[in-house]
Structure formats: structure tokens, C-alpha cells
């Protein structure tokens, strides 16, 4: 293995320190609101710091390094264009996200019940949780694969009778156990505090690694090899190459990003935990403006791998061709990262996984309990039973992810799978958005938007599978996945508007804009 004793020691000490902190924080949790949204006492810098750790997941690092290796910095221009839309919308005007915080809802489905009806809450809670959990199923096994290559562990860890126990499974089990422990102890309070300290370790490690790679390779060599290997597509995304980006792709990505701000559970739970609406938009603003730098540093690791190893798999490497692009960077880092930095890097990758997994798993567990179980109970849970229900759900989900990881075989690129799941969730975002701003947004319109974003993508996915099963090339399907998703969103929005205009029933709309102003002035809490 590529890991020295000092590296394991560093990893062990940091992990135990964080665990001790989590045990201590557990005592601060006194209510369900504390467990689920930290009592809504998270201020801007703490929220941002914890949010950074939550955003830098191990799967994100894997995917971002892969992008760097395959496309260099081609994504930068798209990031700039995206910021020009998203930052004013959410960071300056607080579009939708401030109103969500003002509603005091803990989750998207809870707001759906407040604004529309209980049955839609249950339906959206169920579908969103299902899509979110499905998305998360691949996180542990993908992250484990990356770590296995990084530490140089063998494919098979040991034999259990006739069964070859893969190292990926062992690492996956460790990752899930760690995430379980931290969410179990103290819920969202623990998550916020430990994520904050994990952020410090992650950022120190990433930047130290970045400096080391630049020192070894040199900036000129890095950039020149990128230009040589990828040409214009390394810095400009719209070259028109097959598999590259285009205008429809960008339009779809922007619309999906906007809708996810109102529908993606982990995002909304983070906003619900903040002390007031202005904190939400401010943390988005500052986080977006300065957060792109760390993404570029991670892309740079993939670029460094490209510079040192070239665009094709070196001979003698024990990784299949289909996953080489995602394994190139850990393979490269395993050869070039020395002791101490390797220990810190391992700790940061472990914490990147824990910080994201625990945020997401707590969010989806909360949604399952609050939105899929509680609405059917005649008598509400006691606070103790409520927290226990969430904890039990966390354990069940971790077991589910482990079992999924045992049988998972990638059949599509990671990002395509994640975005397909996200499309299902976006229907609720349309219902949320219109609900918060339009008095006439009706229950019928909300049902239509949620169902459209469920039925169309699933039908499209099934049709593609049939197309491929009949021997056709997936690239010859009559429309691209992003065109299908973009059309789904537009259709759902049109149906929301049309059905709402046709409805004459009074709605449960209330003016959240006024509450935002009052809360930001401190007149209410």
C-alpha cells in the first residue's frame, strides 16, 4: 500500500478528535428542532464553513478530477456564465430561498402541505426521498473505489470461504459507519460543527496538495500539456465536439440548478437551519463568489494527472478502461504524494465523504420520517421517539447503500445518473417557486408539475433502455438527455400556469415577502 505508518497515525488522531467533539456536542441537542435544523441558530460564517464541507463530497472530488483529466478547464466558462445568473438571483435578491426560510418550514414537503395540501406533501416527500436516496446509493461505492486506488489496496481484501471480499466493500463499510456515527450523535448540530472543522482540514489538505503538485510539475508544464492534449476544448467548452457542451445543455443545467434551490432537501435543510432570511442569501452570495476557486484547484489535480501520465491508460495498470478516466487522478496521486501529506489527504477525503454523506442522509431521513411517516400518524411522535425514528431511518439507509454497493456496476457516466435523479426532484421546485410568489398557484397545477417531472424522465429512461436493448446506439436516440429534461421542465411550468389559471378555488397563499422583511429587521424570529 502507498500509506506509511505516520499517515495512518495522522488519520487516526484527526478522526478521534472529531469523534470526541461529536460525542460532546450530542449533549447540546435538546429538541427535535435542534436535531433537525440546529434550532435555527446558524449564522452566516458558520453556515458557509459547514456548507463548504457539505459541498465537497468525495463523489464530487472524483467527478471533478475526472472532468479535469478529460476536459481540462473547459468548464470554467460555463461556471462564469452560471454565476452571472445565479449569484444576482439568489445571492443578491434571495429569490425564493429567503422566502423559504421565512416560512419556517423544515423541509420542502412541509412547505408543500402549508401551501397546498397534505396528500401532495406525502407524494412529493415520497418521490423526492426516493430520488434522493437513489442518487445517494452510488456515493459510497464510487468514493470507496477512488480511495482504494489512492491507497494502493488490492482488489480483493480477503477470502470469506469461497467469497472474495473486495477492498471496495470494506472501505465502503467504513465510510458508511463513520457517516452513521456522526449523524446519530446530535443530528444537525453535530453536523454543522463537525463539518466546519472538517472544512478546515479539507481546505488545508487540498491547497497543500496543489502547491506540492505545482512545485513538482511546474505551472508552465501543467498548462502546456493541457493545451497540447486537449487543444481549444481545454479552455473553451462550446467547440461543437461530440460529447461536448452546447447551448441546450447550458439552458437545461441553469434551469435545473435554479429549481434545485427550491427542491433539493439537503440545500433547503441548510437554509432552514440559518438564523434569518438574509443569512441565507448572504451565505449563498459569498459562497458562490469565492467557492469556484476550490473547484478549480480540484480540477487542477486531474490536469496534473494528465500532464504526468498522458490521456491514455498506462500499461500495467489494474483498472478497467471504462472507469480509467475517474481512476486516473487517484492513481497519479498514489505515485506522487509523500508521507504526512498522504495522511492529511486521506483524512480530508474521509471527512469530505462524511460531511456530505451525513448532511444528505440526515436530510433524506428527516424527509422520510416527517413527510412519509408522520402524516399517517394520528398522534404525533414524542420528541424522543421522533429523533429515534430519524436515527433508525439513517441506519436502514446506510444498510441499503451498502447492499446496493455490493451489486453496483456502472452503466452510465456518474453525472448523467445524478442529473436524472435530480430531474424528478425539480417538479417539487416548480410547485414551491410558484407557491411562494403567485397567489393563484393551485393544487392542481402543483400536482401536474410534480407528476410531469416524475413520469416524463422515467418514461424517457425506459425508452432509452428499450432502444439500446434493440441493438441501437445510445448516441442515435432521437433526443439528448438534456433536451428531454429541459422539455420536461418547460412542460411542467406550462401545466402549472394553465391549470392554476383554470382553477377558481381559493388558495392558501400568504405573503412571505412581508415576513422576510420583518425577520431581516429582527421584528420577528
Amino acid at each position, binding site marked *: 500500500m502507498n500509506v506509511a505508518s505516520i499517515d495512518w497515525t495522522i488519520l487516526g488522531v484527526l478522526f478521534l478528535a472529531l469523534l470526541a467533539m461529536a460525542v460532546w456536542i450530542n449533549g447540546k441537542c435538546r429538541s427535535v428542532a435542534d436535531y433537525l435544523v440546529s434550532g435555527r441558530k446558524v449564522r452566516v*460564517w458558520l453556515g458557509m464553513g459547514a456548507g463548504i464541507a457539505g459541498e465537497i463530497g468525495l463523489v464530487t472530488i472524483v467527478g471533478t478530477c475526472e472532468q479535469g483529466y478529460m476536459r481540462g478547464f473547459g468548464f470554467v466558462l460555463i461556471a462564469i456564465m452560471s454565476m452571472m445568473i445565479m449569484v444576482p438571483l439568489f445571492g443578491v435578491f434571495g429569490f425564493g430561498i429567503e422566502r423559504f426560510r421565512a416560512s419556517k418550514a423544515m423541509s420542502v414537503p412541509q412547505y408543500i402541505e402549508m401551501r397546498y395540501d397534505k396528500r401532495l406533501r406525502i407524494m412529493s416527500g415520497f418521490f423526492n426521498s426516493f430520488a434522493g436516496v437513489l442518487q445517494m446509493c452510488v456515493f459510497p461505492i464510487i468514493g470507496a473505489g477512488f480511495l482504494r486506488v489512492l491507497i494502493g489496496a488490492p482488489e480483493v481484501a480477503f477470502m470469506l470461504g469461497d467469497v472474495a471480499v473486495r477492498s471496495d466493500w470494506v472501505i465502503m463499510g467504513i465510510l458508511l459507519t463513520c457517516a452513521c456515527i456522526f449523524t446519530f450523535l446530535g443530528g444537525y448540530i453535530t453536523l454543522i460543527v463537525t463539518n466546519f472543522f472538517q472544512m478546515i482540514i479539507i481546505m488545508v489538505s487540498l491547497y497543500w496538495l496543489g502547491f506540492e503538485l505545482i512545485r513538482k510539475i511546474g505551472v508552465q508544464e501543467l498548462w502546456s500539456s493541457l493545451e497540447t492534449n486537449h487543444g481549444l476544448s481545454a479552455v473553451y467548452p462550446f467547440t461543437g465536439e461530440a460529447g461536448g457542451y452546447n447551448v441546450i445543455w447550458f439552458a437545461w443545467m441553469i434551469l435545473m440548478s435554479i429549481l434545485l434551490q427550491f427542491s433539493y432537501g439537503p440545500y433547503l435543510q441548510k437554509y432552514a437551519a440559518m438564523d434569518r432570511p438574509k443569512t441565507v442569501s448572504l451565505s449563498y452570495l459569498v459562497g458562490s463568489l469565492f467557492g469556484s476557486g476550490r473547484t478549480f484547484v480540484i480540477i487542477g489535480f486531474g490536469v496534473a494527472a494528465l500532464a504526468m501520465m498522458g490521456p491514455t491508460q498506462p500499461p500495467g495498470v489494474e483498472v478497467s478502461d471504462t472507469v480509467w478516466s475517474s481512476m486516473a487522478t487517484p492513481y497519479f496521486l498514489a505515485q506522487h504524494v509523500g508521507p504526512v501529506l498522504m495522511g492529511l489527504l486521506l483524512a480530508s477525503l474521509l471527512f469530505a465523504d462524511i460531511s456530505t454523506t451525513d448532511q444528505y442522509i440526515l436530510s433524506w431521513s428527516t424527509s422520510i420520517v416527517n413527510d412519509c411517516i408522520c402524516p399517517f400518524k394520528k398522534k404525533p411522535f414524542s420528541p424522543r421517539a421522533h429523533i429515534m425514528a430519524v436515527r433508525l431511518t439513517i441506519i436502514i439507509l446506510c444498510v441499503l447503500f451498502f447492499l446496493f454497493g455490493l451489486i453496483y456496476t456502472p452503466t452510465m457516466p456518474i453525472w448523467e445518473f445524478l442529473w436524472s435523479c435530480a430531474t424528478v426532484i425539480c417538479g417539487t421546485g416548480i410547485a414551491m417557486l410558484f407557491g411562494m410568489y403567485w397567489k393563484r398557484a393551485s393544487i392542481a397545477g402543483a400536482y401536474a408539475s410534480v407528476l410531469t417531472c416524475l413520469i416524463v424522465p422515467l418514461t424517457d429512461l425506459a425508452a432509452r433502455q428499450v432502444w439500446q436493448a434493440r441493438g441501437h446506439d445510445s448516441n442515435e436516440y432521437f433526443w439528448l438527455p438534456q433536451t428531454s429534461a429541459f422539455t420536461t421542465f418547460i412542460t411542467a411550468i406550462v401545466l402549472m400556469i394553465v391549470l392554476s389559471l383554470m382553477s377558481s378555488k381559493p388558495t392558501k397563499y400568504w405573503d412571505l415577502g412581508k415576513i422576510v422583511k420583518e425577520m431581516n429587521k429582527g421584528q420577528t424570529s
Partner: protein
Amino acid sequence: MSELFIQFDPELGFWSPFVYWFVTVSAILCVLFTLVVIVGGVFDLRFLFNALSEEDVDETDDGRVVAQEPGDTGKTGG
């Protein structure tokens, strides 16, 4: 620092130096921003722990929507 001033492939025109400098400046700003977040976050941690120990516990604030009065368009427990 002088290492940052590199040569670019002229065939790639404006985009190569533009993206390079954008990435470099962003990475540097991110370091400074992280330091600010760390300092600010420590102060916010103190606020969080003080606020959690001082707050009154509302047992109905658990994600449910309470029964509504006519004209009352929705309340949480909290």
C-alpha cells in the same frame, strides 16, 4: 510568483490566458476567503452554543403543520 507568468499557445487565442488567469485569481481569493470563514465561523460557534443553551424548547416545532384557523394560511409548530 514569477512562475505564474507563463507562455500560451497562440492558436488558442484569447481563451487560454483568460481561463488561466481567472483560475489563478479565483484560487488565490479562495484561500483568503477560507481564512475569513474560519475566523468568522469560530465566533458563530460561540453564538450557536450560547443560543442553544438559552433557548426555550418548543416541542411542537418538529416539522408538522398544526391545524389552521380560517384565513390562517399555515403555521409551523415553531
